[in-house]
């Protein structure tokens, strides 16, 4: 499914490192998943930088988690598409083309779109996480407390309304 490593450049590499320093994530990909989820949930997007500084997740690691990526890509796509503007069949193709087939998403234009969204949410979510957890933290304990509060707030989300309350807290 994934043929290339996922690389975080510049500030995103710093963010990954900041969060990894908490030592509560076994793998970088776990931080990436948390970021994508946060990005989609709060609809925050970002764009990778160009820099010599980088952190990398190997393609093989990404492929081992393909089921989660496929579901998140569906969510990312749904978040960005107005269902009424697109035919039912087209929607099904865009959403599910890679769900059971082992298509290379990079080769498939339609499929690529949802993974583009996914990437944007990854970087956006990572920035949100870093700002909430690390940016103003004094030390590791502070960071853990920040993450704990943030997860607690996410845990209380029941509907679109409740996310707006948290979004206002974020800003």
């Amino acid at each position, binding site marked *: 499914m994934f043929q290339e490593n996922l690389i975080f450049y510049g500030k995103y590499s710093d963010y990954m490192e900041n969060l990894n320093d908490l030592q509560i994530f076994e793998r970088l990909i776990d931080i990436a998943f948390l970021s994508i989820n946060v990005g989609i949930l709060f609809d925050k997007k970002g764009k990778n930088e160009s820099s010599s500084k980088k952190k990398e997740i190997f393609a093989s690691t990404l492929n081992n988690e393909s089921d989660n990526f496929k579901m998140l890509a569906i969510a990312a796509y749904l978040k960005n598409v107005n269902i009424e503007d697109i035919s039912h069949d087209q929607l099904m*193709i865009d959403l599910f083309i890679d769900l059971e087939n082992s298509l290379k998403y990079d080769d498939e234009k339609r499929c690529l779109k949802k993974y583009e969204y996914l990437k944007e949410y990854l970087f956006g979510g990572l920035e949100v996480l870093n700002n909430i957890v690390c940016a103003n933290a004094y030390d590791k304990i502070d960071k853990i407390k920040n993450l704990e509060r943030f997860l607690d707030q996410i845990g209380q989300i029941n509907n679109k309304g409740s996310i707006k309350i948290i979004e206002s807290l974020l800003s």
Partner: protein
Amino acid sequence: MLIKSIEYKNFRQFENSRIEFSTDPTKNTTIILAGNTNGKSTIVESFRWCFYGELNLPKPKEVANRTAFNKLENQESLTVSVKVELTHQNADYIVEREQVLKNVYGNKRYNVSTISISKKNINGVYEDVTTKMDISEIVPLELMSYFFFTGERFDVLVDNKADGKRDISNAVRSILGLEPVEFAISDLDKVKESYRIKMITQMGDSAEQLTNSLNTISNEIKTVKDKINKLKIEKLEVISKKDDLFNRLQNNPNEEREKRLKEINSKIKEHNNIIDLNTQSLKLSFKKMITPSIFEKIYLCNKDKFDNLKPNESNFTGIDLATLERILTTKTCICGRDILEDTKEYNTIVEIIDQLKKKNLNINEDRAVSKVNSFINNSKNVSELFFVENTQRMRNLSSSLEQLESLELQKNDALLYDDNQESFETNKKLYEGYHETEINIQREIDDLENEIIEKEKSLDEINSKIDEYYQKEKTNNALKLKSDYCDKIQEELKFYYSNQEKTILNKLNKKVANLFENLIRTKHTIEIDSKYKFKVKDVDGVEATSDGADVLTAMAFIGGLISLAKENSETLNSYEPYPLVLDSPFGKLEKTHQQSVSRFLPGIPEQFVLLVSDSQFTDTVSESLESKIGKMWTIETEYSSEGDKKAVVKEYKYLED
């Protein structure tokens, strides 16, 4: 290789001396007793000079004996030589290095030194084989340092500081033959630099300006990095003062202090357990549950869209996709009728095409939608527990980390404790002073590191502008590609290097840890990190540093390195015996450790040569080694009337005495 004897002629303070070494496997130890400055280091280093013409001593070029030289008339010559008799792969060899020097109006004129290797043939006669073989076939230069240890180098290893770590790191690198990889990495930098210069030449004036700024910022970064390095050294000095203070107090045991420490250590252990437990649970939960758990929230916030995902079962059969696509492209039906855009017919054809494509793409809507729904249902089941459990875990974790911080402070207080209130206060003030200085230095380091980050950002910006220039030039594009290719090769080499280093370090860790367990009588263990720094820990896992333990660790390192060197060398046969020549290792050891070390050392190599001063050759050492000593020598120093040193070597009949 086993050394049978070494013979000196006019070499440094050895005018005319010969030392024989024990090659008896049951009594494999030779002792050379000599006071400080009586030539122990010269003996260790003389092997390197004989084999490779190198000397790691002060004034390394001055190999000639001064008294002998002073006797020379103008234009007269003198031969300096070191001759080593040895056995290697069941054959006898004599390796001799000679150097002639001449007195030219009172000045020394040295000729180039020459080595000769002779091998005993079946008739018992030594034949010159210098042109047929190289000394590296007997003992490779890069491995010499593991078999011949001077006291100075041993002390550096014991101190567990930067030089010692570098020594071990160099040893690991040369055992693995990693130098060529290092050279390749740095050579690629030169290649990239040459491409860069070529590119800049083709880029014109504005590019030159950019390059100048690039160089200025690079130099500024270098200056800041130098400052950081200086501060780091200052910080290490302060830390070492702090350690000295603790060590001084530890050397004066105090019952109350021990009691307090024990209590605090047990609490620390308790909190470390809580931290471990919660960290592991968090890691596992994040690894398995992050996506399903937060996905439920994503679903709840986008319910309308997810709920709209329903399969559509209308089917079209017998219609060819290519035909329909052609109708759309030509906007003409097969019957010749026009099919205009946005008409009912046109839209129907588009819909049918989508469905056919979906079929061709093997999308089973039913299954796909039910997969998504089942993922959402699973999310609902795990989500609540995920948030409740993990926020609680993080609460426990931060609380234990806070407790641990406070316990570390209490531990410092306990370590500084003294029955005498006044001394206690003085210790505390001293410690607080050091601690504050350390924190201030660290703050300065942090500020400078942030400065570097900012400067590196500017570098990145300039580099991307330069990249834009590159894109414009076709030739530069080619050079850029080559340069990128160099980057890739460097990455690969670095990856290979670090993997190899990791593997060998793991092996070394195991060997050192095993040897250390044999050496130490208490239940301490040793841990070595990736920077070759070692920590000795007690049964509770608490760091327990002492000079004695450091010496034992260094011994274990030497043992481990010798074993690794033999295992990894292409030249050395791992069954071939080798010597360990070691200078003054007992200085910092307590009696009990002296005993275990003395018993252990002869077992590391097949032949053991111990150079030791009278004061270090205590009864404990001598009794422990007694059964292993095959030969023993003493070296005394005599001074000529001109004040020149002369070493007098005598065999000491140890067993008869």
